[in-house]
Structures are given as C-alpha cells and as structure tokens.
C-alpha cells in the first residue's frame, strides 16, 4: 500500500502506521523479551536478596534441581495439571453433549456452568477454603445431619491437599471447556448428521464416530488453554492452601515467588521462572506458529 514519492509529508504518511505501532511494540520488546533476558541473566548469577551481576553459570539451576521443594512443586504440577486437564475436558464434553440435546432451559443452565470463569481465583480459593474447612464447612454439616463418621478433610491433609486445588480449579474452568465444546458441536454441519441418521447410525454411534472426531480442534484448544492455565496457577493455591499444609501444595509458581521474594534466593527463583517459561513456550510456540501459518492471505 505504501508508495514512494518525494515530499516529507508523503513520507510521513508512509511511516505513520509503523509509528503508531512502534510504542506498543517497543513496550512489548522491552517489558516482555528484555525482561525475560534479564531474568535469564539473573538465573545465571549469584543474586540472593538483591540482583548481583556476577556470573555463576548454571549453578542456580543445579541448586534448583537439588531442592526437594522444587521436585515437590513439579510433582504437584503433574498431579494438578493432569487432573485439571483430563477432568475439565471429560466433564466439559459430557455437559456440552447433554446440553446439545435440545434442552429447553439451556439459556439458564449455560450461564450457571460458566459463571465461575468470571470470578477471581482468589475469590474461588476463599470460597472453597471455607466450604472444605473440616471444622465448620461441609464435613461438619454432614456430621450434623447424623453421619458422625463422615470425613472430608483433604484440605488439611498433606497427601490430599493438592486434590482440593484440582477440585476448585476444575470447578472454575470446566464450564468454559463446556462452552468451547458446545461451540464446536454447533458448528458441525447438520446435513452430515442427517445423512448418518438416514444411514441407520444410533445417537451414540453418531457421537462416537462422527461428532467427537470432528471436535478435534476444540480438544486441541482446550488442552492448550488448560495446560497454560495450570502452569501459571498461582492465586488459587495461595488463596486456598497458601501452598500448605507445609509445602504440600507447592507449585512452580509459588516456589518461584517464595524463593525470590521471601527466601532471598533470587538466582534460584529466576531459574525456576525460566523453567516455567520453557514449559509454556514448549506448548504455546508450536501452537501459535501453526495458527499464524494457517491463515494465508
């Protein structure tokens, strides 16, 4: 669109679009990519309470992976992440298929399934912390009904607390996954389903053989979005368990924060942040790349 011609005004016109974009792009370059490099440098330094630019190679990474705490965080992320992704997708798909059976009150139900997504993780954590409180919450209530031996104290049990994080996370995100699948279901060509019906396929067969395979893009999007949210989860853990009991619900995100800001191990904290970044990049870069490539002009 840009044509060359003499005249300063004309040249300004040519450069105007780029000038308009430049401040935003510069902000992103500095505050995102510049800062990432900065963090990478810190992760290879001897920084403790304050940044120190003294080269230490991969020392911080070695110390990071020597920390039982970090391994705990990784293990918890694996448990939380896989439960979060699998259950959200299973539940979301199940609800979407149920809702797709010309449900008269769909307009009422859909917003109910989805509203948790509008809440802050801190609010979600606070609510579930209260609900799962063994002394006064759900457990106490059921006991009050007469079932004296009923026990649901996962929130305070180190071996089970991470599952409460998963429960709250699933409660928050599964409605969103449902909506993604529902959009996918609604995008399927009705003539194809009519043809399958005429061909004698049962509803179950239609879903198993035709509909669910056609939802592949929705599956992919759901996995990417959920994996990305799982790695970044921070607020939910802080509000629900504070990372405890002990370090039972430590995640890489909480690990990074406490090592950097409260335990004065900035180099190790930076190293953990870089590992998180690499994890996200491994998921997002191929995905974004293929999405951008596909849209050919």
């Amino acid at each position, binding site marked *: 669109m840009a044509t060359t011609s003499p005249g300063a005004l004309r040249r300004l016109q040519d450069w105007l679009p780029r000038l308009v974009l430049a401040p935003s792009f510069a902000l992103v370059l500095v505050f995102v990519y510049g800062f990432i490099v900065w963090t990478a440098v810190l992760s290879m330094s001897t920084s403790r309470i304050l940044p120190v630019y003294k080269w230490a190679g991969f020392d911080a990474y070695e110390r990071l992976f020597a920390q039982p705490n970090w391994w705990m965080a990784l293990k918890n992320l694996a448990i939380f992440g896989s439960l979060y992704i699998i259950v959200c997708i299973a539940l979301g798909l199940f609800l979407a298929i149920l809702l797709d059976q010309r449900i008269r009150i769909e307009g009422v*139900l859909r917003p109910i399934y989805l509203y948790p997504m509008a*809440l*802050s993780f*801190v609010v979600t954590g606070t609510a579930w912390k209260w609900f799962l409180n063994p002394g*006064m919450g*759900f457990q106490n209530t059921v006991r*009050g*009904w007469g079932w004296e031996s009923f026990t649901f104290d996962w929130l305070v049990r180190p071996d089970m607390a991470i599952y409460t994080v998963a429960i709250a996370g699933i409660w928050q995100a599964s409605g969103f996954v449902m909506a993604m699948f529902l959009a996918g279901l609604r995008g399927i060509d009705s003539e194809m389903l009519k043809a399958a019906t005429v061909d004698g396929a049962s509803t179950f067969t239609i879903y198993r053989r035709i509909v669910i395979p056609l939802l592949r893009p929705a599956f992919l999007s759901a996995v990417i979005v959920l994996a990305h949210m799982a790695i970044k989860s921070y607020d939910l853990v802080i509000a629900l368990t504070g990372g405890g009991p002990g370090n039972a619900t430590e995640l890489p995100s909480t690990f990074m924060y406490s090592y950097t800001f409260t335990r004065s191990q900035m180099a190790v904290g930076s190293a953990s942040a870089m590992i998180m970044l690499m994890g996200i990049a491994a998921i997002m870069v191929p995905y*974004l790349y293929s999405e951008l490539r596909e849209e050919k002009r």
Partner: protein
Amino acid sequence: MSAREMAIATAAGPSRLNRVVIYGLLLIFAAMYLLPLFVMLTTSFKSLDEIRGGDILALPADPTIQPWLRAWGSACIGVTCDGIKGYFWNSIKMVVPAVLISTALGALNGYVLTKWRFRGHKLVFGLMLFACFIPFQSVLIPMARVLGQLGLSNTTAGLVLVHVVYGIGFTTLFFRNYYEAFPTELIHSAQMDGAGFFTIFRRILLPSSAPIIVVCVIYQFTNIWNDFLFGVSFASGESAPMTVALNNLVASSTGVKEYNVDMAAAVIAALPTLIVYVVAGRYFMRGLMAGAVKG
C-alpha cells in the same frame, strides 16, 4: 429447533426416560456449580454464632448485613481496620485507565496490522501474541526493579503501567482478528476518496467496532480486576488492589476468625465481574473464546 437437533432427536427416539435422566444430570451439575456461590452468600448473612453452630447449607436463620458493613468499612487488613473499601477503589482506579489505554492501543495496533501491513507484520504480531502467554514469573523481578527505579512501586499508576504492557497482546489480538474480516475495499475506497490514516480509522473503522470494543473492554476488565500476582508483587501496602486485600483479610490469623466477614468481602470482590457477566455474558464468552482459539 434446528434441523441438526431434529436429526439427533430422531436418532435418539422419543424416550421419556432418556430425557428425564438428561435433565436430572444437568440440574445436579447446575446445583454443584452454584453451591460455592450459595454458601458464600448465605454465610455472609449469618451471625458468627449461627456459623459455629451450624449447617453450612442452611439459609440464614436470622439474616444480618452486619458482616457486609464490617467487611466494607471496619474489618482489619494488616494493621489498619478500615475495611476493604479503600482497596475496592484502588482496584477501580487501576482498572479504568488500564482498560481504556490497553483497548485504545489494541485498536490502533489491530488497524495497522491488518490494513497497513508492512514487511514483517506477522513477526511483530507473533511476538506480541506470545507475550500474552508467558508466565509472568519470568518478568516479575525485572519489573519490580524498574517500577522501583521509576518511583512507581506500591502505586496504582505502576499497576496501570503493568496491566497496559501485559494487556496489549490480547487487545491487539482482538482487534486484529476483527479488522481482518473488515473489507479492505472499504479502506481502499476511503483512500481514493481522500481520507488519511487517522480519518479512515475514526470515520470508517471505529463506528463499526462497537462489538469488539465491548468484548475487549469486558475481557480486560475481568482480567485486570481479578489479577492477583501483579498486585501482590508490586503493590502490597495501602495501594493494594481488591484481590490482594481479600487474601490478606482471609489469611490474617490475628483475633477471632470472622468467616461471615470473609465471605462478604469475597462477594464484594466478585461483584463487579459477576455483574458484567450477568449483564453482558454473550460478550464475555466471545472474549474468552477469542483469547483461547486464536487467529
């Protein structure tokens, strides 16, 4: 009923039992999704005595708004006991400018990246897009240093800057995808009619952008209001946003634990985004989808 639903219905056969099971399952799930909100609300209207005695699922026997008043005006957060109202306004003061600035920049960026393409526009967009998805832990330390040097630590202005910077990627994505579908012939036509860069934007694109502006504003509003990590990292004291204050209130271990006040504060923190969700759920959904299913 759409033709597709007909097709499925015919295949399923008119089984009454099936329908009952489906409706039953859907309603049970609806109850499960509503339960935490229900518990939050009922707890916030109960007295502490009733809470200690009781059934978490029961409606308040003697509803009181005292917990709400305490949460708003006199609950203790840290060393001060002025409730969460100051933090609520902190959040408003942070959200409004951050949303407006990031949306305006996103609109201009989307316009340039679709209608005034230049060599490398894809790379620029790709870099901005990836920036949306980084774990913010990887920029936390440098950001804290820079805010400190700019004198913006523990200020609302600092948080506005942070949210604008890390929100541009999404707002640009929204507007880019929207303007991508906007006919380029209209731009060409306006150019031939003598309109320049900004005139075309103001007179041709902007008047047609209302839906995406709503989507973008709602998305940004929800995200920034609900943010916790930046708030707790860069503004922990008097200038903390609502989410951080709520967490401090709930996590504080001094004195008698007032669960009803905690819940009232949680509802207050959730209220703005819930209202937006109820009023404009359709746009909220579109924003989530656009943010999730890229280009």
